């Protein structure tokens, strides 16, 4: 019962914060919309997409990038959560969470789940906007996408938590954008299929193959077309578990970075 009270309290708090920060929703939607409306319009003619799974016919570029743009929302929201953890730690409100008499792994996972639910809201808001621009999936596709979007959001949120346990100051966060977010995004299948990348650079193709974000995006792409991608599911799940473990380690006062940081 007390675990449920704590879990629901953390989720409600994150939802309230999200509600109070309406600009966050707008900015979360503007970024993928720019890609969809401006970038995709420009490249629509230049980049034809061959028939590759899960597609059963030729598709236009704007249709191809919708799952990747959903992934971008999850990626940026995961980093936003990480940023808010660093902010909370600098401002002190993290101490309220960490001095709760509940197991720290439970608290961190609850926070991750809360962040993932907010990511989901943003992605479905984006799907509505994409639908208004004529990019439509089946109703079942939208339904099947929910659990894999959640899993990918957990994986990326956990990565954000790991990063937040390393980052000492908010000012250092620009480095995360340059060294984590953009490479993860551009070296993935979010904007172009990997076979296109392989044609121009084999090394980058292999880097993208090992990028867990690629597998998160593919998992979403297949689910939106009512199909399963076993390999992507396994890799995303395992990566989520590893990142969650590292995040829990990072916030352990006995072993992790939080203690060392406080000690400086």
């Amino acid at each position: 019962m007390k675990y449920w009270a704590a879990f629901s309290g953390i989720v409600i708090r994150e939802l309230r914060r999200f509600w109070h920060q309406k600009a966050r929703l707008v900015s979360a939607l503007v970024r993928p919309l720019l890609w969809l409306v401006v970038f995709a319009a420009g490249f629509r003619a230049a980049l034809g997409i061959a028939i590759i799974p899960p597609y059963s016919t030729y598709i236009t570029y704007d249709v191809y990038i919708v799952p990747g743009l959903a992934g971008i929302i999850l990626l940026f929201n995961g980093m936003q959560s990480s940023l808010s953890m660093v902010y909370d730690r600098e401002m002190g409100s993290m101490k309220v969470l960490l001095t709760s008499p509940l197991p720290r792994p439970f608290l961190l996972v609850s926070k991750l789940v809360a962040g993932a639910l907010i990511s989901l809201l943003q992605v479905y808001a984006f799907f509505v906007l994409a639908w208004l621009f004529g990019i439509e999936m089946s109703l079942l596709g939208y339904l099947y996408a929910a659990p894999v979007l959640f899993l990918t959001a957990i994986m990326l949120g956990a990565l954000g938590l790991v990063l937040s346990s390393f980052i000492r100051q908010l000012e250092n966060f620009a480095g995360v954008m340059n060294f984590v977010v953009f490479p993860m995004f551009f070296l993935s299948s979010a904007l172009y299929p990997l076979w296109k990348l392989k044609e121009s650079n084999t090394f980058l193709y292999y880097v993208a193959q090992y990028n867990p974000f690629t597998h998160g995006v593919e998992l979403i792409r297949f689910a939106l077309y009512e199909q399963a991608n076993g390999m992507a599911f396994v890799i995303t799940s395992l990566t989520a578990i590893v990142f969650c473990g590292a995040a829990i380690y990072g916030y352990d006062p006995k072993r992790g970075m939080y203690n060392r940081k406080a000690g400086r």
Partner: protein
Amino acid sequence: MSYALQVTSLSYAYQKHNVLEGISLQLQKGRFYALLGPNGAGKSTLFSLLSQLLSTNTGDISINAYPIRTAPRKALASMGIVFQQTTLDTDLTVRQNLQYHASLHGLNAKQAKDNIARELNRFNLEHKQNAKIRALNGGHRRRVEIARALLHDPAVLLLDEASVGLDMPTRDSINEHIRYLCKERGITVLSSTHLVDEVQRDDHLILLHAGKILLDAPCESALSARGVSDVKTLYRQLIQGETP
């Protein structure tokens, strides 16, 4: 005898710099303890160790008879903490901040509602309950933080320089209120400060300097034993005796 808070031979070092050196404390139930020390004495480090934000292998801590090594969660549940830096969520209202804390301590909806109403009433905050924290002044924010720390009925209340940044009347009013709570609810209060004038003669005074405890005695008896009339003189004597 079981103490509300017991610290035994506690040491902590930041890299190679010793911040706390083998300190021991025994705090009785229902008493007010003033932890006095200059900036850098180790007060905040001690509070971080008590609240398990930091950990050390040297020494032991028990809160309400729960050792933090073997029963860390019960120890945390027995403690209310007001940190030096404000830890309220400024985007949320007073009530929402209290609800969040209640949920983190596992209070069910009815308990949370009752306890929030009790603390809002006790701290005269009912009219502010729907105000966002960012709209409150420093004094009201501190009241909310203390109300929040008492929400789950802790046996021990830790106040880490809780009056820093407040004007004199607000400071006095909050300090008076804490002492009243200590008597009324029988909770043990450990209140750290670097301001000598916050210590009252009937407090139990713990003087921490450079990571060591220089004095641990009722203030009144310490004054008589040293033959001085006020805490400021006592403080100077003890600190100067330690400073090379």
